[in-house]
């Protein structure tokens, strides 16, 4: 079981001063949070992608590339990478490159994105969101597995004899999670490939997405990847932790109430009705255990901790409480409740092993294209 944190690089006014952080400050704060998570032994740090203020997270590969050098053990991931408006060719190249920089400590989560104008800014249309996501992933999947790709689709310019470089580290692509909360087609795609399925069920009623997770599990089994209970499931969550429940509520309330996304709600309603956990370490532990009861054994739990309005010192304290008081107990508890044989989420090492060993991609001399003559790598027949 992997435990980690995820964010989207948002910026909101500090409720005590009314002043938002600068973008420069937000970027440095995010780096501090990631390094703290690494040092404190959390398993995953994931960062999202947005292309409009008040978000700074336009370039996850750049941030993750830097973090690859600055961190020791933590798995770097995305929450999410836009599979709709990014060119799948560029996704293949960028994330394979970061995978090398991180020595395999990288996977990614793909999502559609729900900011309408981002689609036209990148030459797309949100009404095509689902087919765009499906088709783009189909291409990405091949680019990471076939040295030379001929491809033609509905949305992107065709490819003839294209090789995405660098080839994935050790010949093994980064593991992919498909994030979706209301689209059975995305769950079907995840199940078909034996990829992970991430239900970011924050901001929705508890267990609202369980039918979709069940569908993914069933289809994972139908496609012969394992038993339904072995399917690779990740869940989102959100937490604010303090020694005592009352203290958690009173300290979190100003950040919650001033945060634009939560307007019109009450902290009590959201904390009761959604996966948001506000309380003592034990209360956060108890609530998270209900996820396992409700969704079945799963492989990855990510929490959103760094609300854009929260000073970095508060977030760092949250990361420490999570890593030292919550996660160790959950590791033990969830482990002991886990059904026998349920696998962990794949890692680079496990994927290399499953592939029967690693591959070194040594390119042949440049021919200007890959459409004629021998294959572009020495080891490929």
């Amino acid at each position, binding site marked *: 079981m992997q435990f980690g944190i995820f964010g989207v690089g948002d910026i909101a006014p500090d409720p005590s001063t009314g002043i938002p952080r600068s973008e420069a400050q937000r970027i440095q704060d995010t780096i501090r949070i990631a390094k703290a998570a690494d040092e404190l032994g959390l398993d995953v740090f994931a960062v999202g992608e947005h292309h409009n203020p008040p978000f700074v997270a336009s370039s996850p590969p750049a941030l993750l590339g830097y973090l690859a050098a600055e961190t020791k053990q933590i798995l770097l991931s995305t929450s999410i990478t836009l599979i709709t408006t990014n060119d799948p060719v560029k996704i293949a190249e960028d994330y394979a490159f970061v995978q090398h920089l991180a020595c395999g400590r990288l996977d990614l989560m793909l999502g559609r994105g729900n900011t309408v104008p981002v689609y036209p800014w990148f030459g797309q249309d949100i009404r095509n969101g*689902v*087919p765009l996501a*499906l*088709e783009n992933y*189909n291409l990405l*999947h091949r680019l990471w597995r076939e040295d030379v790709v001929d491809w033609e689709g509905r949305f992107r310019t065709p490819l003839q004899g294209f090789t995405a470089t660098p080839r994935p580290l050790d010949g093994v692509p980064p593991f992919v999670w498909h994030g979706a909360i*209301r*689209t*059975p*087609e*995305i769950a*079907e*795609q995840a199940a*078909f490939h034996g990829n992970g399925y991430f239900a970011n069920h924050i*901001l*929705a*009623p508890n267990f*609202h*997405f369980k*039918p*979709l997770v*069940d*569908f993914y599990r*069933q*289809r994972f089994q139908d496609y012969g990847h394992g038993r339904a209970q072995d399917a690779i499931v990740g869940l989102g969550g959100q937490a604010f932790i303090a020694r005592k429940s009352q203290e958690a509520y009173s300290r979190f309330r100003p950040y919650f109430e001033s945060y634009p996304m*939560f*307007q*019109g*709600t*009450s902290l009590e*309603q*959201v904390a009761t*009705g*959604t996966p948001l956990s506000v309380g003592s370490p034990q209360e956060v532990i108890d609530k998270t255990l209900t996820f396992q009861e409700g969704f079945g054994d799963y492989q990855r739990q990510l929490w959103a901790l760094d609300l854009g309005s929260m000073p970095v010192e508060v977030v760092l304290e949250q990361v420490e409480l999570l890593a030292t008081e919550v996660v160790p107990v959950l590791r033990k508890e969830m482990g002991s409740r886990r059904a026998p044989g349920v696998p962990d989420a794949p890692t680079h090492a496990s994927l290399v092993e499953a592939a029967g060993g690693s591959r070194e991609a040594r390119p042949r001399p440049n021919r200007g294209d890959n459409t004629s003559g021998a294959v572009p790598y020495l080891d490929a027949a």
Partner: protein
Amino acid sequence: MNLVPPLVPPAFRLAVVSAGVSEPSTTRMLADRAARAVVTRLPGTDVHVVELAPIAADIARGLVSGLLAGPVQEAVELLAAADAVIVSTPVYKAGISGLFKTFIDVLDNDLLIAKPVLLAATAGSARHAMVVDDHLRPLFAYLRAIPVPTSLFAAPEDWAAAETSQRIDRAAAELAALMTSGVGRDIADGGWSAYQHTFGGNATRSTRTPSGINLDTDLMRLARGEP
């Protein structure tokens, strides 16, 4: 000795939605009279009334946050389970009540597909008489419900008019006819997959289990990488 079991008429479920805010409310009275007229025709019908005023804040919060509080969710489930619905709204500022519209706005688009609905409105002046047909009828057309041909409207003077009772009776007869015919169920059952749905939605027939998902679509084939 009677060997034939007594004939039990099918028990219908009738949901009544009232957006009236006064006590007593003529909006509620109009809905109640229509409901009684339906029960007279179909004895044994279960009538469940949803008053929007007491849950107004929850409805507004539901619209903004996307989270439906308990009482709103219960109202949605009543509508989903109903064989027919009576809706009744006051006219404010020459239109239907914002509270009523907000409640409709938080419903899933497919919640009321082919559901027989009796439309009713009250106003302070007969000049607003067309609101029920100009505002409510297109709204329920959008929801693909089946509004009955006769709409109800009551201005102050109508409460003294015999025609009001006749009109209520006529509208109730229309609703009862649709309920007993089962035409709504036939349409929804027969053509359910042809309508657009939200996975895990609130409608009675919405897909909530993995087995209900249609795998034989172009998008599903694309998901599997099939040409």
